[in-house]
């Protein structure tokens, strides 16, 4: 692979304490190295900002629910097309782009890694096929286990070791990255009588378990298993007034162990259930600031088109009640639920303006950018293509003030947003968009530009308009290949699947097999995915020292 050298750029590499100094970045064989030969291609980045490629810790880009959402909105695709070129497949965009377009658009925005946040394990093959058709970026996915009936039975019977082994088995079987919990406990109520969990301490029907017990069990087990990323939790009561208390209880359940709370903006509401929400951003961020074991992504809402797609089926049903428009529900045997509702966030709507303001409050009150990172829960809070605009909101208080004026003023007035003057620095942006998510994910070779790191590099032309700047990097380098060269998409490149392979006692298969025979409709022996089904992949080592394998292509 040819060598590459980037000179004269101002480098923001917070993981290595480089803060805007002019430095040279050398690349060989897809990695950052100390130096390269004189014959290396040299990119003169004078007047430009150099960062590691962006890392999206939470998005929905591949799999059954994403594809249902794609199919659901032909009207959204026809307005936004992606013509093919000699190096690009054609596709369509909108809030749920086709797979190829998803990869290209992340890349042309300077992002080189993205994690699909919710996969029912029985559908993992589908996810892997879509990810193989998602070019340029590296990607992994989180496995929905938080409503898994087999695991609930083990918990009910107090079989802690089997529970841990079963989690590790599942991650191996489907090539996932970590455990995802979504509204734990709710599936059984939803599937039996279209109800939801309202209290994190209520019993989940006959399982004799509470959501809080389920959450604690997963946090403990994953901690013992040493996954690079802890359980990724979508808390109970998403979107409901007064839910911040549920969120606090969830974080406290970790008792100092690592935990990641997804799209925490949606879980930071005060007020009484059934009445208008209030901001509880202060209560939430105070807890996070004080507890270094917690990481979270914000799940900022951005005005315009979105689509709710979630394993939280009761939530989608509640949203359907407002407009009675298109609604998708999909119950997955023994594993998950799913709901999809097209949506649009509007400035004049009280709740939408409030959600927007709460997200920004969380960002602006956060004391540790490493642990509160950027997301829109794409496409739930808005498309990932809105990240540059969100960055501008954080970096430019004048722009923020102008935007606030356009909103429902009643909503804004109930928050502290207007009184916060803070502006994010370039370093902090580099943290919340790459270094922080990479660290939270346990991806040692991503999010930074130190020697040995993956050569995923983004070079932006410095521009006072931060939206413009972050919207169109001048160069994007993936694994040492210049994919975007002087703003032009020059060469196609296929990224890797990132997954873990934790060890387990295979005696657990003797317990799984009869359960599959009784309650699944596919054979146990046809469930696990073999390595030869994967496109290029990389095993990320667990913290227990289980070695990762070298990259395979």
């Amino acid at each position: 692979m040819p060598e590459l050298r980037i000179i004269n750029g101002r480098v923001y590499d917070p993981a290595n304490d480089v803060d805007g100094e002019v430095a040279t970045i050398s690349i060989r064989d897809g990695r950052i190295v100390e130096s390269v030969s004189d014959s290396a291609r040299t990119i003169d980045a004078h007047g430009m900002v150099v960062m590691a490629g962006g890392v999206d810790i939470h998005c929905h880009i591949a799999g059954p629910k994403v594809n249902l959402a794609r199919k659901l909105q032909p009207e959204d695709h026809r307005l936004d097309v992606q013509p093919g070129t000699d190096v690009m497949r054609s596709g369509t965009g909108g809030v749920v782009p086709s797979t190829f377009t998803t990869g290209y658009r992340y890349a042309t925005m300077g992002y080189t890694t993205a994690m699909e946040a919710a996969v029912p394990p029985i559908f993992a093959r589908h996810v892997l096929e879509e990810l193989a058709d998602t070019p340029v970026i590296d990607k992994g996915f989180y496995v929905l286990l938080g409503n898994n009936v087999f695991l609930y039975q083990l918990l009910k019977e107090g079989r802690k070791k089997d529970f841990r082994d079963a989690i590790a088995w599942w991650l191996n079987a489907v090539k996932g990255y970590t455990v995802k919990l979504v509204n734990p406990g709710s599936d059984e109520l939803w599937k039996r009588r279209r109800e939801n969990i309202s209290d994190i301490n209520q019993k989940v029907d006959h399982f004799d378990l509470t959501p809080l017990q389920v959450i604690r069990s997963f946090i403990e087990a994953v901690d013992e298993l040493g996954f690079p990323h802890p359980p990724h939790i979508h808390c109970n009561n998403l979107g409901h007034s007064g839910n911040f208390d549920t969120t606090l209880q969830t974080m406290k359940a970790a008792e100092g162990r690592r935990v990641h709370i997804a799209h925490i903006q949606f879980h930071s509401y005060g007020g009484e259930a059934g009445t208008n929400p209030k901001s509880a951003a202060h209560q939430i961020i105070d807890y996070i600031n004080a507890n270094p074991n917690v990481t979270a992504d914000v799940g900022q809402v951005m005005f315009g088109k979105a689509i709710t797609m979630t394993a939280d089926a009761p939530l989608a049903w509640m949203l359907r009640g407002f407009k009675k428009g298109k609604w998708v529900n999909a119950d997955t045997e023994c594993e998950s639920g799913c709901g999809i509702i097209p949506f649009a966030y509007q400035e004049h709507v009280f709740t939408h303006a409030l959600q927007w303001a709460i997200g920004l409050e969380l960002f602006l009150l956060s004391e540790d950018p490493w642990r509160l990172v950027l997301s829109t829960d794409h496409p739930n809070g808005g498309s990932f293509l809105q990240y540059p605009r969100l960055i501008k909101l954080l970096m430019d208080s004048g722009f923020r003030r102008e935007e606030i004026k356009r909103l429902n003023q009643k909503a804004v007035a109930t928050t502290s947003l207007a009184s916060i003057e803070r502006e994010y620095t370039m370093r902090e942006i580099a943290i919340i968009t790459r270094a922080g998510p990479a660290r939270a994910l346990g991806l040692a070779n991503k999010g930074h530009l130190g020697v040995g790191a993956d050569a995923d590099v983004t070079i932006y032309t410095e521009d006072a308009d931060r939206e413009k700047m972050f919207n169109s990097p001048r160069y994007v380098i993936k694994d040492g290949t210049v994919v975007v060269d002087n703003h032009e998409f020059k060469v196609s490149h296929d990224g890797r699947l990132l997954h873990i392979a934790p060890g387990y006692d295979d005696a657990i298969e003797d317990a799984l097999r009869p359960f599959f025979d009784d309650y699944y409709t596919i054979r146990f022996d046809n469930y696990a995915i073999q390595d030869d089904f994967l496109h290029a992949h990389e095993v990320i080592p667990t913290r227990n020292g289980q070695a990762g394998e070298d990259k395979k292509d």
Partner: protein
Amino acid sequence: MSDTETRQDNEGDIKIVKNATCTFCGCVCDDMDLTVDLKQKRITKAKNACVLGRAWFAEHTIEDRPAALIDGREASVEEAVEEAARILMEARFPITYGLSDSTCEAQRVAVAISDLVKGGVDTTTSVCHGPSGIAFQGVGETTSTLGEVKNRADLVIYWGGNPAESHPRHFTRYAVTPKGMYIPNGKKDRTVVLVDVRKTPSAPVSDIFIQVKPGRDFELLWTIRALVNGKKITADVEELTGVSRETLDDLVTRMKNCSYGVLFFGMGLTMTRGRHFNSGAVLALAADLNQFAPFVAKPVRGHGNVTGADNVVSWQTGYPFGVNFNRGFPRFNPGEFTTVDVLARGEADAALVIATDPASNFPKKAIETLRRIPVISLDTKQTETSRLARVAFTVATYGINTGGTVYRMDDVPITLRPAFESPYPTDEEILSAIRDKVLALRRQRPAAAAEKPAAP
């Protein structure tokens, strides 16, 4: 050692393949135990298979036919690939059609070819549940995997379908007889309702048979939906639909009071008057019922991997079928870009037909166009389409000779375990070779000719 191992006996002639997958219909049962005679290259026994599956496995033997024909004359695969690529590159509006009896791996390549040659891609969905796809875009869908039906459904309704003959194990493996988590006694714990215009061989399985007048499904569905939502209905419902008010009231009561209801619908709805309105009415009715009970609706899909085709075309283009790339990006418009239409209007000037036989099951006008234009066909057997094709490939049978992935009718992806090797290449191999040849031809052409003239 797990019981999935492929075993051979001492002579090495007989092999047992456990947990193999049958791809004949959309049920995609993955519990076949196949006995394979390796010398004869045939499957001698398919344990757990239904009558259709047994025929599928027994009849897919290796026939002695050329791997490729050009104009009816034997040709090498390389020559045929070259000719196929040339046809597709030279055509102004080449279409790709079929795909539902092929693996997802092959489908992905087929869509790539259509994209590269700026043609059209459509699957057999457009003539089976295409209208349900259109209805989905308008209404959404409340659905589930078949395991939820097995574990939970105590009310199972079939409308406009005849699984006893089209999907025999739909009853026995998934929806009626099996015991499930909350259905400890299997069929005894379920009420089965069949709605159809004629008393089909599926009727004996049902507890309640409702005979609707032909072409009146929409009216009947909309009436039920009105009753579910507490609206008044007119007295002429029986005259209009053939179904009495008492029968309707009883059905509505059962729907609202069940523990978990499912409405399976077939092509009796999509292929008759009303088409996507019928499917839309089913989807809207099922959605409304969730006010009272968990309720889902599912189209009963026909071909082994038609559901995979929907998924692949959707993730690559954003649309499920009837996609056109003439302008260099995907567009979707049923009636304009669907295969029956582009053929009946004589618009397509070349066709790549994969694993289906439009020359024997399309309307006559569409077939006339197929006879006129260069056709490239991939099929395991000789068909009317392969007989009229300019280039005809004989390919290996998916699931019997090839591995890969197929999606069951409920979108669950399932892996294939091949039983024995075929001397013929796979769809994926042929299509990949055509794609590579097309790419090479694209690189060769002079820059000025890079843009094809716009297609009609």
